[in-house]
């Protein structure tokens, strides 16, 4: 029974197993003759059953549906749904119950509004809120696709004197004259201003001092102080540890106060010239670094040097020169390679500003560009040859003596031409604060080309002074010759 053709063996799975296991040798016959088949080694292979990996999830909190079968799970779902609904009903009921206590009675509200902790909270948060409201930074602004507008600040980049901002308060500074200004040494953005009494409102306090903040765009003062007496002028001298508050009044009395005890002065000094004439002091200044010697200007137009302690306590010398009461006096303060602390400037009702040296009892130079009472003058704290003065018709003038001694280097008129009572340089020397007779404080930015002092300004000023002195001596010689003739 041998087939003549080849054939295919097709066995089902079961038979194949048997076939391999039994080492059966098959003879396959085909045309070519019987193929020789031999024994071959059989390897037994075992396939392990495929593992089914399954995951189960369990919740840690015991739930009622935990160990239930499928059938029972359905029942539970039905159960939990009504339970949830029930809970929701409970919640809404609770809210309804809470609604009545939500409303506070008017009395309770008023009580809260008057309580101290509320006032503290409100003072603090309203201050922050006002600052945040005033800052108008628009972070969403889209520059592309819009016309680039020239900003106002840029056009004034090269300007010598430009108005930065104005400080005035409807309630506290209106109808009052700015009597004094002072920049804080610790926080350069804070400016203190004192005001005279408000004649239109006799019930308001007589003396007001406001602290203004340059840093934020907020238009209201940071702090308001008031007292019953008008504040004129104060000055703190000395170092951080040993300092005194010096005050001078028009009755010729100079008092030195300790800041811990402001009820009575530490000591007082009657300023009298040659033991007979009491000096009516209008302004006072201490030279840089000096706490003993000082200079005062008086109502009679004379300048006096004085000292606080020592055998010659009191007035030492008298300098004559002005023809009217002295309104402002300032000693040179810009520290640099050359010491000019013997120099001081004075302003007066006689329409002039004069430059003096403590070594000379006649003025070194007289600046006569103004056409009204000059109310105040101050040296720049950073530039040795620069000073500012203000007059009664709204002019703010900056004089740079290294440039020009005949006319101011920069000048600006305050809108409305109010009488400007006070001028104060900021400690940086880049800004000037001007106080007027209507209670407004104007802050001006001074251009870099004027305010920033180069290294050679001090030596240049020495030359300027020499020139000034030479001119003065020539003038005096001429005058003496004329008298002789």
């Amino acid at each position, binding site marked *: 029974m041998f087939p003549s053709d080849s054939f295919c063996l097709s066995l089902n799975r079961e038979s194949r197993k048997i076939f391999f296991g039994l080492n059966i040798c098959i003879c396959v016959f085909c045309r070519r003759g019987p193929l020789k088949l031999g024994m071959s080694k059989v390897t037994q292979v075992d396939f392990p059953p495929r593992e089914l990996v399954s995951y189960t999830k369990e919740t840690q909190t015991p739930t009622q549906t935990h160990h239930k079968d499928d059938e029972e799970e359905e029942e539970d779902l039905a159960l939990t749904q009504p339970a949830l609904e029930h809970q929701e009903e409970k919640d809404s009921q609770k809210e309804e119950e809470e609604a009545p206590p*939500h409303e506070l009675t008017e009395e309770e509200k008023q009580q*809260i509004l008057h309580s101290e902790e509320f*006032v503290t909270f409100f003072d603090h*948060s*309203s201050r922050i809120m006002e600052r945040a*409201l005033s800052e108008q930074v628009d972070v969403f602004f889209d520059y592309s696709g819009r016309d680039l507008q020239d900003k106002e600040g840029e056009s004034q980049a090269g300007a010598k004197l430009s108005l930065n901002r104005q400080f005035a308060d409807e309630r506290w500074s209106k109808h009052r004259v700015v009597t004094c200004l002072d920049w804080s040494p610790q926080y350069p953005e804070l400016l203190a201003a004192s005001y005279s009494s408000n004649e239109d409102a006799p019930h308001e306090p007589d003396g007001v001092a406001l602290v203004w903040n340059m840093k934020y765009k907020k238009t*209201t003062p940071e702090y308001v102080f008031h007292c019953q007496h008008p504040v004129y002028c104060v000055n703190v001298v000395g170092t951080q540890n040993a300092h005194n508050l010096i005050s001078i009044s028009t009755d010729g009395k100079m008092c030195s106060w300790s800041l811990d005890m402001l009820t009575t002065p530490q000591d007082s000094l009657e300023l009298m010239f040659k033991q007979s004439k009491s000096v009516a002091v209008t302004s006072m200044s201490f030279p840089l670094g000096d706490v003993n010697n000082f200079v005062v200007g008086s109502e009679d137009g004379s300048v006096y040097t004085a000292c606080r302690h020592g055998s010659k306590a009191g007035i030492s010398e008298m300098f004559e020169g002005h023809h009217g009461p002295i309104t402002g006096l300032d000693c040179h303060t810009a520290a640099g390679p050359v010491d000019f602390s013997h120099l001081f400037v004075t302003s007066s009702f006689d329409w002039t500003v004069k430059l003096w040296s403590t070594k000379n009892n006649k003025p070194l130079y007289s600046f006569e560009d103004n056409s009204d009472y000059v109310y105040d003058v101050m040296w720049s704290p950073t530039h040795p040859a620069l000073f500012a003065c203000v007059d009664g018709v709204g002019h703010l003038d900056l004089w740079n003596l290294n440039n020009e001694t005949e006319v101011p280097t920069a000048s600006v008129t305050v809108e409305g031409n109010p009488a400007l009572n006070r001028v104060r340089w900021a400690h940086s020397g880049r800004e000037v604060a001007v106080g007027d007779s209507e209670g407004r404080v104007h802050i001006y930015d001074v251009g870099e080309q004027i305010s920033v002092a180069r290294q050679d300004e001090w030596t240049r000023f020495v030359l300027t002074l020499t020139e000034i002195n030479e001119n003065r001596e020539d003038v005096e010689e001429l005058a003496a010759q004329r008298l002789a003739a």
Partner: protein
Amino acid sequence: MAEVEETIKRIQSQKGVQGIIIVNAEGIPIKSTLDNSSTVQYAGNVHQLLLKARGMVRDIDPQNDLTFLRVRSKKNEIMIAPDKDYFLIVIQNPTE
């Protein structure tokens, strides 16, 4: 008390300010320049947001605390100054 009124008036008169609400720690309004329904709506929502914001800040760093919250939207900006017992809400339209 007059100072509080004055300050509120002053803030109200600033450019773009639409309303001022003072709320206590439970979210109950004490003083407001808006009508009652808006006040209640703002107070409730801000209270929720404040709790979440404060919780978030404290969660990230337990020693930290929320000091100010500003929510800027298309139409306006809501500024919230929170405190232990009260908070001040100001709604402003800055582009006005």
